């Protein structure tokens, strides 16, 4: 049981990708860290649904904090990912122009990219685009090539950050929404759904609830979360042979637009939509938008006509009333906020964590000492382009045949330092039941393997 009387150096509210990276950064610096999340597992809010792209920042607002965080994070990710066994699918990206008007905007995009320090970008002619992607619809007019935009594993990466933080002593409390807070001298007294907690500093990484958490902590909110829904369609693995490069649209002011990209899991993904809404707890998929996404994908790559769909999903991005990240500090109160991370959080999280730690360091003299051993965890590989567990002898049988997930992998996830809290968490850690049949063949077996092991059980207890 957690020791509620111990005082933490830092309490982090929210175990999304930003909270996980934050926990890792502060734990690496030697802080005693506790991460709280309202859900039964990490990555249960905005972080569970994204397009899994590691961005260079080529199209980010110049001189923005977002750009700085993305680029610092990009470098750090590339530095740590080999030791953590995190995959990178080196695809590059093309911002494709489909009209005269879009084509005319490519030079500006190139200038922005170059200005942002992404100097390997260049404009491709129609012929060069089609040579690179022969299955693209032939009315493409040209593209901006961004060679270092890549695809990563959107769940294993933040899980690796959290696992490292945990190995360095960070505590994680789930089903622990923040309900009340009081600043008592130089200590925060936090009330949560899983008991009280004391901490010197609090870092708000609460994503879709960032503004509300800020209000609980300091009594006012300096920003307002305006959820933006993104729906996605995942095509059958057979689709991924039709496209190699990430295909981006010429962006508009509000959104990066609909992306067509491979995933490290061997699928092809189209999305997201950008739908403003009030609700923070509803990410509905809708028939009309899903049809539009499929039609969009087919328009870009005609070979996708009649391609079976494997999955559909929707997520909410924690956009705010302004485009910028809402990162700020009130050092006197011991309050730090990484809010409004609306779209590039997966890429930028490591950089945001560094930035917030720098903010924290401005007003604190470092009394902690960094751990001697950073205990770098090595993550199980889920990427299709690298050896999978089922190819290694002794795996005790394949449970999920669509995604080729073994019993050994499922058991390892259930016995890991940060085990899944619910079925979604198990799916994100192993990919089981994520494939074509969505559990038609494997749900029964998974129910048995997980029995008694998930905080939120797969089957309701009253009938199980």
């Amino acid at each position, binding site marked *: 049981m957690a020791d509620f009387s111990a005082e933490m150096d830092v309490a982090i509210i929210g175990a999304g990708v930003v909270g996980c990276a934050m926990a890792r950064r502060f734990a690496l610096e030697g802080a005693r860290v506790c991460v709280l999340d309202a859900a039964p597992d990490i990555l249960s809010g905005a972080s569970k649904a994204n397009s899994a792209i590691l961005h260079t920042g080529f199209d980010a607002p110049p001189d923005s904090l977002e750009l700085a965080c993305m680029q610092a994070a990009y470098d750090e990710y590339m530095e740590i990912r080999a030791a953590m066994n995190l995959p990178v699918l080196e695809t590059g990206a093309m911002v494709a122009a489909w009209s005269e008007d879009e084509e005319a905007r490519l030079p500006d995009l190139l200038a922005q990219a170059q200005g942002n320090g992404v100097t390997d970008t260049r404009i491709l002619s129609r012929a060069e685009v089609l040579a690179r992607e022969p299955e693209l619809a032939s009315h493409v007019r040209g593209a901006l090539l961004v060679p270092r935009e890549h695809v990563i594993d959107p769940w294993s990466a933040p899980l690796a950050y959290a696992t490292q933080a945990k190995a360095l002593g960070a505590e994680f409390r789930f089903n622990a929404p923040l309900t009340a807070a009081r600043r008592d001298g130089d200590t925060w007294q936090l009330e949560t759904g899983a008991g009280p907690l004391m901490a010197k500093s609090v870092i708000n990484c609460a994503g879709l609830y960032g503004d509300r958490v800020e209000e609980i902590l300091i009594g006012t909110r300096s920003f307002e979360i305006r959820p933006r829904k993104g729906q996605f369609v995942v095509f059958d693995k057979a689709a991924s042979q039709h496209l190699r490069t990430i295909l981006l649209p010429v962006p508009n002011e509000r959104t990066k637009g609909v992306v067509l990209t491979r995933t490290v899991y061997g699928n092809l993904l189209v999305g997201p939509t950008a739908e403003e809404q009030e609700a923070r707890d509803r990410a509905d998929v809708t028939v009309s938008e*899903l049809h539009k996404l499929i039609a969009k994908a087919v328009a870009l790559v005609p070979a996708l006509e009649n391609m079976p769909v494997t999955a559909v999903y929707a997520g909410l991005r924690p956009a705010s009333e302004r485009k910028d990240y809402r990162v700020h500090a009130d050092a006197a109160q011991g309050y730090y906020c990484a809010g409004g991370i609306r779209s590039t959080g997966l890429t930028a999280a490591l950089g945001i964590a560094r930035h917030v730690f720098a903010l924290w360091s401005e007003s604190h003299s470092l009394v902690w000492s960094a751990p001697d051993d950073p205990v770098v965890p090595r993550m199980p590989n889920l990427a299709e382009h690298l050896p999978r567990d089922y190819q290694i002898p002794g795996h005790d049988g394949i449970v999920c045949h669509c995604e080729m997930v073994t019993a050994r992998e499922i058991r390892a996830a259930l016995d890991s330092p940060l085990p899944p809290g619910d079925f979604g968490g198990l799916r994100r850690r192993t990919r089981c039941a994520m494939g074509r049949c969505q559990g038609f*063949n494997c749900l029964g077996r998974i129910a*048995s393997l997980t029995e008694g092991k998930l905080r939120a059980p797969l089957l309701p207890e009253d009938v199980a």
Partner: protein
Amino acid sequence: MTAACDVAIVGGGPAGLGAALELSRLGLRRVVVLERFGEAGGIPRHCGHPPFGMREFRRVLSGPAYARRLVHAAEEAGVEIRTDTTVTAIRPGGVLELATTGGAQTLTAGRVLLATGNRERTRAQLLAPGLRPVGVMNTGALQSLIYLEGKRPFSRPVIVGSEIVALSALLTCRRHGIRPVAMVETRDRPQTRRIDMLLARLMGVPVLTGAELLSIEGAPRVEALRLRHKSEERRLECDGIVFSGRFTPEATVARQSELALDPRTLGPEVDADGRSSDPQVFVAGNVLHPVETAGHCWAEGRRAAQAIFRDMRKTPERAAGARIVPGDGLRYVVPQRLAAGAAAVLNIRTDGAVRGRLVLSDASGRELAARSVHSYPEQPVRLSVPALESAALTGDLTLRLDRKD
């Protein structure tokens, strides 16, 4: 290269085991069934109610008992069944790539029979709207939970769909104290015979046809299904949703092996012998035509076995013959090609209920076979075609439906 076995059968369900037994009976010694699950038997393993086995064993069995008998009969006949063995691809030349608990392996076979079956479309494939809570599943998952794992996932589900498998879901519920709230069909009539809906009525389960799904509700578990029925919005409170039917072939191996696929069935394209676009690969069972009964698949497996046996004495040839082009009102026809010299039976599915005359004709418009048809929506329709002369097969054949309404 010497083949490690005469015939490798991918999939140990009714079609695969029916074929294995027949090949063994024909005298082939080295027949191997590759089954990805820990146990062979296929979908009947988790379909815990009768009737199975009438055609094969002349008696009425439950699914699991039927599956055990199929496995037993094949083993008695000397067939080798390798369980926990997943075929990841079939390469030209009869080379199978396998994933086993011992790691990756290859197996070379003189001929391969692909019998990987089918599965129900998921809510994702049906683009069903709403939230994505736990408790939404296919009949297959429901039945494997109950019959293989002894677990009940819910107590008052909504069943979406009205094909035969929806009745199977109803029976499963009835035998295990689960009380379905409603049966919901988005099309405008039940997809089976109307009389089959008596089962729902007997169980007190309302059948809502012509419903439009509005949203799946609930988090983290299912709480309701919202729909529009007779221009009225309704919210069906439930703790589970079963998406039944709308079968699609389990064609992953076929796709990864680059066999030619039929865009109508989404399964491999074959000739009347079950030969695919790879000369050494034959196909049988529900991977060809979603969905037929276990008994039909078993018989089709046997016929494919006989064709393989004849074929093994010749140089392999890819599926050839004239292509059959189905017209308006016809969803699919299997086989997709006909060759000269042998009679064949076409498996046909219509788009919904139809009444009229089915006509197969050659490029010159000459009628080769015909029958009257008066079908319910998901009714398997057969058309017998006599042995054709090669003159009839110089261009595409046309299969048309002359409606009579």
